[in-house]
């Protein structure tokens, strides 16, 4: 359709029709949906700032009269909250970093290096996307236990490091890179290491960001594996610490439990709010590239 120059063609009446104010119903529905979907998070945050008598008041009170961090202090007294936060941040940063590096290097080899059984190796990587983690848990648990890795950081970290999804995304991106640039680099005498870091990585920042952010989210939220491997509070991650708090304080002390839940969810929410576009691109990759 080449209706760009003629304002009177049929092509422009359609946008004009669409520009009419959307019906009120649309706005009402949207605001209602936003409130319903957003309320639980808001409710959690507010509850974590309430005093016990405000929490257990009928009818309910939305806003705390005197918001304070008492619940947070109590949560930090019941479980080593600061230590858990440090553990979670450390394991997430190291885990996501290693995952990105492994995926990046593996994809480089699969795309830019000619070696025997390259297709087989790629198939091996891709097929792991179809193997659910559940089936690997019992053998991995016995292996980690026999290595003496229960209650250690490496026990939490290492079994989940292998990168299949990241490798796949990087490979997809590398196949679209202009080969001439890399051939020119090669003629200038650049080796593979230099080609990878000086040419491929700078041309791949959106994919790098997407893989890194998805890895950060999955590492931070990972629950079942660290829950099985660790029962020493000083080695726990935040989601596992939440289980500890739930078991000790139970449902008797909602304010404290919700304060800890805020500590678990707030960092990842902030990452999401700040880097929304890239994170969403990573999480929905695979669906929208087709």
């Amino acid at each position: 359709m080449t209706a760009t120059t003629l304002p009177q063609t049929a092509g422009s009446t359609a946008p004009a029709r669409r520009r009419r104010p959307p019906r009120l119903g649309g706005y009402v529905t949207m605001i209602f949906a936003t409130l319903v979907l957003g309320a639980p998070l808001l409710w959690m945050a507010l509850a974590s700032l309430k005093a016990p008598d405000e929490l257990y008041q009928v009818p309910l009170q939305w806003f705390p009269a005197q918001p304070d961090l008492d619940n947070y202090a109590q949560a930090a007294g019941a479980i080593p909250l600061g230590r858990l936060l440090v553990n979670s941040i450390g394991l997430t940063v190291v885990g996501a970093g290693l995952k990105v590096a492994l995926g990046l290097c593996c994809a480089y080899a699969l795309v830019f290096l000619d070696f025997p059984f390259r297709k087989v190796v790629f198939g091996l990587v891709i097929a792991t996307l179809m193997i659910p983690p559940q089936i690997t848990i019992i053998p991995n648990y016995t292996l980690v236990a026999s290595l003496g890795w229960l209650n250690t950081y490496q026990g939490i970290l290492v079994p989940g490091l292998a990168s299949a999804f990241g490798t796949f995304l990087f490979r997809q991106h590398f196949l679209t890179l202009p080969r001439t640039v890399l051939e020119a680099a090669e003629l200038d005498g650049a080796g593979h290491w230099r080609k990878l870091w000086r040419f491929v990585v700078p041309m791949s920042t959106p994919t790098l960001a997407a893989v890194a952010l998805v890895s950060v989210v999955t590492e931070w939220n990972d629950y079942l594996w660290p829950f099985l491997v660790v029962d020493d509070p000083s080695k726990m991650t935040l989601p596992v610490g939440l289980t500890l708090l739930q078991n000790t304080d139970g449902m008797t002390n909602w304010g404290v439990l919700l304060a800890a839940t805020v500590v678990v969810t707030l960092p990842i929410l902030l990452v999401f709010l700040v880097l929304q576009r890239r994170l969403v691109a990573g999480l929905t990759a695979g669906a929208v590239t087709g």
Partner: protein
Amino acid sequence: MTTIATTRAPEDPGAPHAGSAAPERTEPQRLRRSRLAAGRRRTALLWALLLAGPNIALLLVFVYRPLVESLYLSTLQWNLGSPTARFVGLGNYVEWFTAPTTGRIVLTTLVFTVATVGGAMVLGLGLALLLNRRLRGRGIARTVAFAPYVLGGFAVGILWLFMFDPRYGLIQELLGWVGIASPQWYTGRPWPLVMVIVVYLWKNLGYVALIYLAGLQAVPQDLKDAAALDGASAARTLRSVVLPLLTPTTFFLLVTMLLSSLQSFDTIKAMTQGGPLGSTTTLMYSIYVESFVNGRAGYASAVATILFLVLLAVTAVQLRFVQQKVHYA
């Protein structure tokens, strides 16, 4: 387990320096070239080992080895940590098929899966249609809707447990506004299962909506205009033009949601621990209970294999479907 099958890789153009022997060369030249090529191939292999080796090694040790070992474990009567095991062949599988709890677990899994997948698809499409309209502030709505998807399932379970608290929760308050007494969400069947389903919907709705939104934005406007010119109502256009064009998106989401729903664990662990009386124990949850609560690792491996086969069947259907090229208009 991740689905990526709708993505189509462009065919690998092959390595740039796969030496094709040029004709009409003198013998020494050809010899030198082939020696050079052999050297290059060796360097490439070394670099491949260095770069891809660590990742492949980790995959072999922590994915493929346990996969094979799990199949072997499923033929044993073996308790976690026990030094002795007894070979029972297919005994564990036979036990699963005849166990009195199996029927209930399969039914719970079916209800949970159908409700969460179906619900997320329908509500997600509705939300996507809403967000596809030119409404002010729809960016905020999209952010709020997607936010739960990035949160951990365990934390989400805890926060919703408070929402559902029959005495002090927000939901009993809202139900009270319309004069409904709060059901016993924690204890009275079928409410614990309903509760877990609601939470799962809340967490995944934004993802479904976002994928649908991308699909909707790819529907050509002239097709919708043409339908409108033909006098089709909005509902008719949706049914006869938009939805058929969204078939590939729908199929992708159906498979992705099925796989993720069949593997959900964290939220159930936080909210109900599979109870009360096993009423929220899905197939996935039963694997955890058998292996790490009851310690029956051999039997649990058999159940894990059964779940694996179910997931594999879902994926196989998807691969078949994708191969019969879905056509976009």
